């Protein structure tokens, strides 16, 4: 062994090696961008109907043009695309060959193709490596979906696609007044608990903050950690909770102001009250060790009946399907009212369309990409999606009356009870930087002895910085 490592390295070889090693450390950026300046940029290539417009072909796609789609392979899988949507599309257009690709890293696979000028036609932009949707829109790479929403639905007679959607869906994918993105999955957000655990202990869902802390005390007495979220990678769940409480206290406009980067949006009293209330829960009823854990670890603890309440979206049930014990019975509760003078009722919910799908404006077959979305938005497409993923879609009432799973039913019920009192925010996708800052600030508030005042000042400062930064395109709603 010592023969190999004889120290005959002199200064010269050393320098050479240093250069080599040093050189390897940096060029990742250049590598990834190695094709800037390449690619052609003739705009308006194909934004006109290329085929004949008819009742079965309202978007006028070219019937034999191939179509390429890329689906993110994550919690939802890809089966809904291959088993439901592609067959539906090919039933109408048997001569259009669909190339299907799936990936766990959307940006790695798709971004270079945008720079090179030959993007796939329809992309499911999702996952931890999703592309910055705002930047895509800013670069003119995203197709305007107005024609899609105006087209008739595939299988809901007499309605346009837009008419079949849950109100707010189109707006959720709007960037500066134009609908660019379809947010397809409909998510209800709240606190999840085990129906069995509650039944066995005779606990009920609290509506007021006093009842809430009483419930948490009861859980603590049973040796269960009453509340927790994963600080290592999912502080996002907790900040959704804090902002939901803020919206309930001060009305949904609180979130709108935050999205629009209004002055003082974060230092508002409602945000402060919500932050203070949850900071106390974090200090008294949670476990600081969760700060170092990942979402799957904390979720598993809940499945083992070691954690009482867990904040998450309605994807939780499907995500945990493998680890959930029989009879666990996932149930959703809306957040209890923080004050007795909350502007919104206790049933109010954070509910939003999520999971982005968009069509490449400079692809080879943008019309075909839109047509594919039309099939996803058919009733059959929506039912298939919900059955395969246990996730609701934005197609209103597509699965009404179907028993699919307890969590889904519970989420659906909560949504019904909320009525018009649902709200959501957009800043997290518009300004990723703000999202990152809020994650850190939330961890500080909940687990590292932060205070509501500090939280609000810190976020206001971050929002002001984004507002001032001219390199970031601003959005309004």
């Amino acid at each position, binding site marked *: *062994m*010592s023969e*190999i*490592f*004889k*120290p005959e*390295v002199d*200064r010269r070889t*050393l*320098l050479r090696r*240093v*250069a080599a*090693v*040093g*050189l*390897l*450390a*940096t*060029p*990742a*950026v*250049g*590598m990834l*961008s190695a094709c*800037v*300046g*390449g690619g052609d*940029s003739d705009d308006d290539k194909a934004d006109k109907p290329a085929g004949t417009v008819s009742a079965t072909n309202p978007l006028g796609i070219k019937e034999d043009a191939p179509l390429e789609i890329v689906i993110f392979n994550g919690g939802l899988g890809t089966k809904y695309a291959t088993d439901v949507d592609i067959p539906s599309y090919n039933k109408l257009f048997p001569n259009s060959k669909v190339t299907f690709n799936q990936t766990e890293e959307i*940006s790695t696979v798709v971004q270079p193709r*945008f*720079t090179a*000028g030959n993007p796939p036609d329809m992309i499911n932009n999702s996952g931890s490596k999703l*592309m*910055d949707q705002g*930047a*895509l829109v*800013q*670069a*003119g*790479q995203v197709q305007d979906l107005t024609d899609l929403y105006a087209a008739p639905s595939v299988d809901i007679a007499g309605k346009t696609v837009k008419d079949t959607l849950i109100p707010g869906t189109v707006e959720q994918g709007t960037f500066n007044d134009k609908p660019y993105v379809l947010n397809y999955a409909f998510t209800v957000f709240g606190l999840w608990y085990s129906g069995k655990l509650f039944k066995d202990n005779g606990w009920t869902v609290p509506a007021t903050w006093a009842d809430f802390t009483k419930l948490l005390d009861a859980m603590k007495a049973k040796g269960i950690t009453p509340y927790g979220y994963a*600080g*290592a*990678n999912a*502080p996002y769940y907790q900040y959704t909770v804090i902002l939901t409480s803020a919206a309930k206290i001060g009305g949904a406009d609180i979130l709108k102001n935050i999205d629009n980067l209004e002055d003082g949006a974060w230092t508002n009293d409602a945000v402060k009250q919500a932050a203070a209330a949850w900071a106390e829960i974090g200090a008294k009823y949670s476990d*600081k*060790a*969760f*700060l*170092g*854990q990942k979402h799957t*670890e904390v979720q598993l603890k809940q499945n083992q009946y070691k954690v009482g309440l867990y904040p998450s979206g309605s994807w939780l049930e499907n995500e945990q399907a493998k680890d959930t014990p029989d009879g666990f019975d996932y149930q959703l509760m809306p957040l209890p009212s923080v004050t007795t003078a909350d502007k919104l009722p206790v049933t109010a919910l954070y509910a939003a369309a999520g999971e982005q799908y968009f069509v490449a404006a400079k692809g080879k077959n943008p019309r075909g990409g839109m047509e594919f979305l039309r099939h996803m938005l058919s009733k059959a497409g929506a039912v298939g999606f919900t059955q395969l993923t246990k996730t609701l879609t934005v197609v209103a009432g597509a699965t009404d009356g179907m028993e699919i799973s307890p969590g889904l039913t519970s989420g659906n019920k909560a949504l019904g009870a909320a009525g018009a009192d649902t709200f959501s925010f957009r800043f997290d996708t518009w300004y990723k*930087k703000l999202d*990152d800052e809020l*994650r*850190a600030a939330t*961890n*500080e508030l909940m*687990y*590292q002895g932060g205070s509501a005042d500090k939280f609000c000042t810190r976020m206001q400062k971050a929002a002001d910085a984004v507002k001032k930064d001219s*390199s970031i395109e601003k959005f309004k709603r």
Partner: protein
Amino acid sequence: MKHGRYPFIIGFLIVPVAIYGTFVVAAYLQAFQLSFTNWRGFSPDVNYIGFDNFTKLFQDDTFWKAIRHHALLLVFLPLFTIVLALFFSFLLNVGGGSKGGRTRGVWGSKFYRVVFFFPQLLALALVAVIFARVYSPDESGLINGILNQFGSGPVLFLADKNLALWSILAVLVWQAVGFYVVLFSAGMGSIPTEIYEAAALDGATRGTLFFKVTLPLLWNTLQVAWVYLGIAAFDAFALVNVMSVDRGGPDGATTVLGLEIFRNMQDYAQFGYASAMGVVLFFLTITFAALTLRVTRRESVEL
């Protein structure tokens, strides 16, 4: 014979040079080019904005945080690793005293030498995942599981602002030590045994042997180790990305330049800004290497 020599040499070089030129030099030049633009990664057109990215960079708190973390790693990673590796390789080679005129390592040193090298064989991502488990804050973590047996509370290695970077540093050291043990062992192996014998005859203790014989004769090797480890201290991206809380957290307490480049590129789609960081990192690394070589210049002993 001279005839045809150049075509021969060129024939050998053309492929590696072409590959190096395309994948390293060209990529580098492009990173420099992009650092003067506000390119966001989705269009073929780029706008030049002069030094704006750099002025912004120098006012960026996170950037300075990352630089401070590199400074800390730069001091302690080489220090801990080299001290440990020297200690171990001394034990493996000379620590057993001399018998029959030959210096030997401690009992079983051949076996240890192989074991020490194991961490080098693991992919860095794997090491990160393993240590994330070791450090896990609940009783499922190796360390906290043991602490739990003795009834002491969990230590939040990665979740405590003051501990997180040190915890990651410990992993870097753990991973690096094996390689340098082998490197130093080789260096020690090439020190003629007569020198040790002579010193031993004069009554030198093991400590004197180490400081008066081994260390000076290893100087060249040590220098190499220092530069390599210093460069490793400018990286640390993989471990931080996989292990740290909230990527570079808690609250930026473990972030490094590599991670910030990645974040600006991947999450914020600020390719120009990320390239500017890359350029800064490039100059930092080069400066460090050049400086180290200057400062540590010292005539090595000819054997």
